């Protein structure tokens, strides 16, 4: 067996182990929240009961940790633990969609030295932001009024359960529960065991997801570059499909969408070709939370993950035909920021205010 094959086998085993650890930590997280008791659950429910607060928590948390998969997985854990209900979870999930796009914008800053290149890269970076912001501006109030995303998610979950979907993932319980019981018995005499368990779960989840993304990326990186070069930007459908597929495999829309920003900067791909790909990435990234929810075996958690999927599908259905809106916004802003450093600083100040002003409202409101 040559070194390359050996390395590949090690990486595949690492992927299997990290997926297991990721699912285990999600289940442990849900379990730890249950240990906090009824009072904590009520306090959390109270905190997230304001949908605006939920939305801002989603935006800020995701932009700080740069991973919507992590935020939505934590939300799924919270829902499974009974400390956040489905209605409150949806705004957090919507916010996570906005928060995850910060990475692209940061990547585009690497081109700031060359005006034309920066303009193209910046437009490619912020088009994802504008798409997600537009989707939230439109769907968030509609959801508050009609709860249609929630209804669709419930319907999807019922259908999924109806075809025996939950049963299909029952073996997960069999391989996860013994470890949960073992951790429980080990933690029984530890003071504040619920807090310790929660911290361990969150750290473990970060580590597992980080390692998982890194390992999968190194496994498929040769294929990813071929996809980008040959297939990705042939037409919108292919762009969307590959964006979805690649993000589902790599488990991070930040990774897949950031990859194409330098290519846009170099002028290899245009913003119009990138747009369907970023929309596909939005769908692909919902896979992680779905996987996490299935590991919990909790139907409400699964419904929450379906809500993430439904929100992104609605976003595409509305803004693919209206793609000129986010694309024009991205082009206008990139033209504005590329004119002078003063403009760029002004934009970055306003951009950061999207994140800081709501926090101030929560803190002092």
């Amino acid at each position, binding site marked *: 067996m040559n070194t390359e094959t050996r390395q590949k086998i090690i990486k595949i085993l690492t992927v299997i182990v990290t997926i297991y650890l990721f699912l285990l930590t999600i289940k442990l997280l849900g379990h730890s929240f249950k240990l906090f008791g009824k009072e904590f659950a009520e306090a959390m429910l109270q905190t997230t009961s304001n949908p605006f607060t939920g939305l801002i928590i989603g935006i800020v948390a995701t932009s700080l940790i740069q991973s919507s998969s992590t935020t939505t997985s934590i939300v799924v854990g919270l829902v499974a633990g009974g400390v956040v209900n489905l209605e409150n979870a949806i705004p957090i999930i919507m916010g996570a969609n906005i928060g995850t796009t910060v990475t692209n914008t940061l990547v585009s800053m690497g081109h700031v030295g060359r005006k034309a290149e920066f303009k193209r890269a910046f437009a490619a970076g912020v088009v994802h932001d504008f798409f997600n912001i537009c989707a939230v501006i439109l769907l968030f109030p509609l959801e508050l009024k009609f709860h249609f995303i929630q209804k669709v998610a419930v319907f999807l979950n019922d259908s999924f359960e109806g075809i025996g979907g939950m049963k299909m993932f029952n073996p997960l319980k069999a391989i996860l529960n013994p470890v949960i019981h073992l951790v429980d018995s080990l933690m029984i005499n530890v003071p504040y065991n619920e807090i310790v368990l929660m911290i361990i779960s969150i750290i473990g989840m970060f580590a597992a997801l980080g390692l998982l993304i890194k390992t999968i990326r190194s496994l498929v990186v*040769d*294929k990813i*570059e*071929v996809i980008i070069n040959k297939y990705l930007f042939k037409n919108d459908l292919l762009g969307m499909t590959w964006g979805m597929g690649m993000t589902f495999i790599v488990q991070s829309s930040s990774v897949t969408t950031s990859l194409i920003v*330098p290519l846009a900067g170099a002028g290899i791909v245009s913003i119009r070709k990138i747009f369907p790909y970023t929309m596909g990435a939005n769908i692909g990234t919902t896979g992680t939370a779905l996987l996490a929810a299935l590991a919990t075996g909790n139907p409400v958690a699964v419904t929450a993950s379906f809500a993430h999927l439904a929100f992104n599908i609605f976003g595409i259905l509305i803004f693919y035909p209206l793609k000129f809106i986010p694309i024009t916004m991205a082009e206008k802003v990139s033209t504005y920021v590329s004119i002078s450093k003063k403009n760029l600083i002004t934009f970055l100040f306003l951009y950061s205010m999207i994140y800081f002003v709501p926090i101030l409202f929560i803190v002092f409101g």
Partner: protein
Amino acid sequence: MWKEIRNLWTSDNLLNEAWDLTYEAINIDAEMFDDATDALWGDNRKTVQKLIFKKDKLINKYERDIRRKVITHLTVQGNDSLAAGLVLSTVIVDVERIGDYIKNIVDLTEMHPDEIQGKNTKDKLREIEVSIKKMFKKAPECIESGDEDIALDMYSETKEIGRTCDKYIQKLVMKNEEELDTSSVAVMVLYFRYLKRINAHLRNIISSVINPYDRIGFKPKKNKK
């Protein structure tokens, strides 16, 4: 879609694909050179021009493909292959320039359809052509193997060809020993010049095997041989 997925499974990484395209482009240059020299000495003149212009367009397409593959590879994989990517982007420019000089040779056949006079000078030209044809054959093998000894030998050979071209251009312009008419002298001087340039670009390509990136196209440092 399924066909694409199947192709994807068997595909190589983009940098290797770009190297393969570079070898292919050098081979196309070699074919073009064969055709152009045949046309210059009187064979297939009518068909050659169209064919060579078509092949030159193909090389230009390869150049763009290679650049796209290199930048995509570097974007996705990071800086590990940065040097190889930069070398490729440099080498393909030389390959493309060779195509341009070959087109210039074809232009000569258009401008001077009559047989070129001057036996001694003609013999020398044909001798240089043969050397360059050998160089075209050896170049892709040399780059692929990365054999520095072969590259250094080829480098010395190209230096010699360059000197010969200069010597004959000087002889034609200053002495015209064979008492050729002005038109033949002009054609021969230009042809020597084009051969010298093609040879120089081949030397640049070969120097990428011997030299670090910053010295591609320059004389190798003395401690190499």
